[in-house]
Structures are given as structure tokens and as C-alpha cells.
């Protein structure tokens, strides 16, 4: 069975709905406590949104030193899928598992609203359910979502197709992110960080199911990569 681990840091606040979204695809989803030193056998790691350590100092700056992050690093290094959503994305950048950084929104205000974005990379464990260029409407809710990186990094991300999600236009860019970047991946394509919240758009009752694909992709990935020992 697909095992999904949802990290819990003090101050994270999207863990329940992230867990629920993972359960909806039939995964055995469990929390992983920040003080744990192993991932408890999780095949896929989700780092949910919220305000780990109050976002004090910088969003994600303190969480990246948690004991569990060593295990996440190992998991990522061996190709294991990791998705950071919002604060999770910020933590992955601070932990240098993804390049660049997320700064204060350009209008200096927290922004909570649906935004239109485009899937630009479907060859990841989290976006394979989408087609390249597919438009999605996803909720965002953050104060520090302005993606920045130096020009070499930006060039590399574009050249290697590592921009996973992009705001649909300048007008849709809610935070002043460079190149309208809403989400990126690492060189291996197994570590992905996105600012929008797909777990909040995975149920028709709450308005949209555009985010569900981020989770069904995990199930597809798992079906392809099931370790031999677990095959029935």
C-alpha cells in the first residue's frame, strides 16, 4: 500500500486537510513528528503549509533544523518524492533542497484568493495527472510567496524545465515572484515546492477539484514505482 507521511512541525496548520487529501487517493497517510528521526517507511513525504515556528526570522528558517529534516534529506537524495506546499516550499528552499528563496509579497500584504496557474512540468510524481500547459485555479494564502533566485539559477530552472507551476500571467501573479514562478522542482524532479494549496481544491464542496491531480499523481507514481518486495 502507498504510504504517505505528512510532516508536522510546531506551527504548521494545514496538516489535517493534507492528510485528508492523501487519504482520498487510498493512501495510508500518517503524520511524522518533527522530532522523529525516521520517516516511518513513508514512500512519499508531504510538507504542509502553515507557520512553522511562527515564520519568525524567515518563513521555514527554523523548521529546516528539525531532527526529521535529516531523514527527509536522505529520502530526497535517494529519489523519494517530497512535496512542499506553501510553508513546505519555504522550508525546502531554506533547507537548500530547492534553489532560491521566498520573500515578502511585493504589496507587503498577506494574500488569500484563488489564482490561475499553468502546469509546466508534468514529469514529476505530483503533476503527472496534468497535461503540460494545463490551466488550474488554486487557492493561495501567504505573506511570503515572492520567489527569488539569482539570474543563473533562474536560467537553469527554465533551461532544465524545472518550473513546475507558473502564475498564468503577470496579472495573476499575486506576490511579485520572479518569472511568475509558483512552483519548482529539484534536478531529479522528485522534490517539488509550490505556493498554491492543492489540498484546498480537492473536493467539489469547497469549490474546486483542480488540485486533486497533485494527489492522484502520487498514486500513479506509486503504481509505477512499487518496490518489488511490496508487489502482491
Amino acid at each position, binding site marked *: 500500500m502507498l504510504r504517505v507521511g505528512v510532516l508536522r512541525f510546531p506551527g504548521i496548520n494545514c496538516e489535517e486537510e493534507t492528510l485528508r487529501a492523501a487519504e482520498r487517493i487510498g493512501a495510508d497517510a500518517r503524520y511524522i513528528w518533527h522530532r522523529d528521526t525516521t520517516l516511518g517507511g513513508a514512500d512519499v513525504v508531504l510538507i504542509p503549509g502553515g507557520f512553522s*515556528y*511562527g515564520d*519568525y*526570522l524567515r518563513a521555514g*528558517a*527554523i523548521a529546516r*533544523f528539525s531532527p526529521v529534516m535529516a531523514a527527509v534529506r536522505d529520502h530526497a537524495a535517494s529519489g523519494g518524492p517530497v512535496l512542499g506546499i506553501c510553508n513546505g516550499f519555504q522550508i525546502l528552499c531554506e533547507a537548500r533542497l530547492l534553489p532560491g528563496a521566498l520573500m515578502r509579497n511585493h504589496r507587503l500584504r498577506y494574500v488569500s484568493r484563488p489564482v490561475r496557474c499553468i502546469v509546466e512540468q508534468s514529469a514529476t510524481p505530483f503533476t503527472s495527472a496534468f497535461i503540460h500547459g494545463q490551466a488550474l485555479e488554486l487557492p493561495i494564502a501567504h505573506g511570503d510567496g515572492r520567489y527569488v533566485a539569482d539570474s543563473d539559477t533562474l536560467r537553469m530552472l527554465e533551461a532544465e524545465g524545472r518550473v513546475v507551476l507558473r502564475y498564468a500571467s503577470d496579472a495573476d501573479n499575486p506576490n511579485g515572484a520572479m518569472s511568475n514562478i509558483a512552483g519548482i522542482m529539484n534536478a531529479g524532479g522528485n522534490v517539488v515546492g509550490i505556493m498554491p494549496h492543492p489540498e484546498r481544491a480537492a473536493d467539489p464542496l469547497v469549490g474546486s477539484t483542480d488540485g486533486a491531480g497533485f494527489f492522484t499523481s502520487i498514486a500513479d507514481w506509486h503504481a509505477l514505482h512499487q518496490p518489488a518486495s511490496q508487489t502482491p
Partner: protein
Amino acid sequence: MTFRVLVRVMPRQGLLDPQGQAVEHALSTLGYPPLESVRVGRAIEIGMEAADAGEAEARARDMCERVLANPVMEDFHLTVEAS
């Protein structure tokens, strides 16, 4: 002449400083020896034209009192450098 004014705006003594607390806590978990105190505020760097350092300082002080610092909660400190 051009001056660079460095302003430090810090939470008033006695007021809770949750950021400072969080940073202190984080540093101690990272194994740094215990610190006496950590406080976090804002740093503002202002480049300005002024006749002399005294004028630069006086103008910056006025800005701090009116705009840059919140007198209810914050104290400020100024230093002026010729640049």
C-alpha cells in the same frame, strides 16, 4: 554631502518579543551555548544628502519619531556615516 544613516528600531524593553524568543530557542537547539538575550527588530538604511552629519542625524531622528518607529512599542537608535 551624502550620508548613510543606519537606524535600528527595537521592541521596547519589557515588551514581549516573540521573534527574539524563537530565535534564541532555535539557536540553543542548534547547540550554541546559551545566550543572555536575543531581540529582533528592524534595520533601516537611509541614504541622504545633507549639509553635514548633524543635519542628517536631525532629519533622520525626526523621521524615526514620526514614521519609522512606533512610539508605543519601539525604541530607535541612529548612527550616521559619511558615504
